[in-house]
């Protein structure tokens, strides 16, 4: 058909299909944000409504080290992304590993905090309303860190086995968006749980 020779001006081209990973990840982030939003609202609504102790001020300590580790992992993952976009697989692997390590340190820190709260302070998910909302919100976030760290680890294994090349850079970046999201959620959870309501 003669119509096939019609050139479409660049301004009329839709978003490139290669960006679909990013669009999809933004959609996932929107849906996940809605879930977190409700848990945060529940936490704020129930703050101070617990009928029995302990109170947040008595038992919660601000997890400075943990938070610094998690926030730093956003930096290392950016450096990893930059490396793979340049094709430096080894540098990528090192920063990727650092990201996982920082995520795991965060999880260990959370586990230690929970251990102290459960065995020394007697705060469990069923002991009071504060316990229910605290473990649910922080636990939901920790679950996302676990999912993210698992994904990161799978990619690390594939990198060590030599399957990851420069052509995967875009996909790596899409996955990194999820990790950034998990970090961003921690900003909200940290502020709400350890600063606003403590």
């Amino acid at each position, binding site marked *: *058909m003669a*119509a*096939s020779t*019609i050139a*479409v001006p660049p301004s*009329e*081209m*839709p*978003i*490139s*299909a290669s*960006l*679909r990973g990013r*669009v*999809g990840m933004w*959609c*996932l982030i*929107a*849906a*996940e*944000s*809605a*879930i*977190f*939003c*409700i*848990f945060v609202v*529940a936490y704020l*609504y*129930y703050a101070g*409504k*617990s*009928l*029995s102790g302990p109170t947040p001020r008595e038992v919660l300590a601000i997890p400075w080290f943990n938070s610094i580790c998690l926030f730093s992992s956003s930096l290392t993952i950016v450096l990893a992304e930059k490396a793979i976009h340049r094709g430096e697989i080894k540098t990528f692997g090192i920063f990727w590993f650092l990201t996982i390590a920082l995520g795991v340190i965060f999880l260990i820190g959370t586990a230690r905090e929970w251990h102290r709260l459960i065995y020394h302070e007697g705060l469990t*998910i*069923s002991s*009071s*309303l504060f316990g*229910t*909302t605290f473990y*649910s919100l922080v636990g*939901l976030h920790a679950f996302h860190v676990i999912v993210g760290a698992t994904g990161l680890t799978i990619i690390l294994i594939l990198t060590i086995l030599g399957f990851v090349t420069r052509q995967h850079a875009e996909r790596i970046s899409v996955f990194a968006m999820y990790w950034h999201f998990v970090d961003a959620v921690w900003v909200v959870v940290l502020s709400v749980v350890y600063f606003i309501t403590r």
Partner: protein
Amino acid sequence: MFDAQPLSPPIVVTPELESAKPLFDRVHEWVVTVDHKRLGLMYFCYGIVFLVIGGIEASIMRAQLSVANNHLVSPETFNQMFTMHGTTMIFFAAMPIVFGFANYLMPLMVGARDMAFPRLNAWSFWMSALGGIILYFSFVGGSGLYGAGSAPNVGWFAYAPLTSRAFSVGHSTDYWIVGILVSGFGSVGTALNVLTTILAMRCPGMTLRRMPLFAWLNSVMAVLVFLALGPLTAAQLMLLIDRYLGGHFFDTQAGGSAVIWMHFFWIFGHPEVYVLVVPAFAIVSEVVPVFSRKPIFGYSVMVAATVAIGFISMGVWAHHMFTIGMTSYGNAFFVASTAAIAVPTGIKIFNWLGTMWGGKIRFAVPMLFCIAFLGQFLIAGLTGIMLSAAPFNWQLSGSYFVIAHFHYVIVGAIIFAVFAGSYYWYPKVTGRMLDEKLGKWHFWVFLIGFHLTFDFMHIPGLLGMPRRIYTYQPDRGWDIWNLIVSTGVIFQAAGVAVWAFNVVRSYFKGKVAGNDPWDAWTLEWSTSSPPPVYNFATLPVVRSRRPLWDLKHPEDPDWKYE
């Protein structure tokens, strides 16, 4: 102008051609498929199966309520029937059906070869399917493995504290929670896929302003799924924590709040209505122009109105809860926001009427369903405005008037649009037309049944009949109305039976359709019927909203005026 493949002769899959493969291979192909057309069909058929199951549950309720002091089923069964009917129809009939339409049509309409994420698409479908199976397994396994099973009986919005372990023993409520939770993951996956397909997979030249309205409206649906399903998932997780880990979210004795569950549920529940009705609008927005032989009236205003509906619908949820006693400021806000939805909705109705105005209307079956949709949706909207007024709502909340109102939306608007869409796109899917005469029988019988049931259901509501009651005394003046309402069910069932017969019969004996039986204008009609696996041999290039009009009328193409 656009560059489609030359209009090729229709390929009709004959039974002989299909049965050449062994049955196992054919089933296996469907199970492992990642093709959006097959998944769309599977979504649709899955939804129809549950539509029939949910319809049977409704029929059992109506049989029980047809006369006063009836004891056809036990009160326990009655509670299970209304719970399962509501849950099934919303999550496992209506949502899969609208997702089916979006799945099948979206890539074809935007000129793509498949959805953005074909494997995620398959995953989403099977998650939804698993959710339905989990919910229905409760009929045999709801009390655990020891006793006879029992289905959930806490109502489809499952208010706390009825769902706590103390009042809902056994596992029936858990099946309800987990079934919906799992299907919710599938819904988010499909919505993500639909939106990404629309944003990133459009063919060259298809700018946002040239997309079919179907694509615009479904993108609003997808965003609403993200914003609505999240709160539901969160609330279900909290309920699971309460039931299994001894949490206190909805436990008033430990400082928790039962009202918070209502808020969280309706933050999901109200946008959910628009998740279902916006795709119905999408179908109507495709059918009305083609059968009025005019382009859609006020395209940009339609888009803006839909986005406005989506936006406002996020801020109206508490109109479901006027009777819990909010502050007067709370009441005033939700009255105003709810009434405000009437404005963009009214704009849409006037735009459809404007499209029909002065058009050369063809009264084929899809158009008949759309015309009925317009009138019925208007009435549903008017009773909605009545219920949005808090004082009126205090009187009628939880009565059959509310039931009549939302069934007017769901059956009168959504199901009618789904039937319109099924007649409109059946030739594209199968290569054969649905029989027009049977279609008219279907339309009229179903229309009579619908109005018998849901028009007269308003009256016992106004007379004070509450929803969810098992039976009633004969001296209330409700008898005759309930009998009429129940009689309508027979007509509705007959209408659906005619439709089902038509669908099966036409698959084998229907008139061969060709590529473009309705002389339509969107891209799906440019490829063969049924479309090949790859949809388009060469990706189309479009220059206007009606690419096929441009192709058929090179002397007066649309793009000259855009």
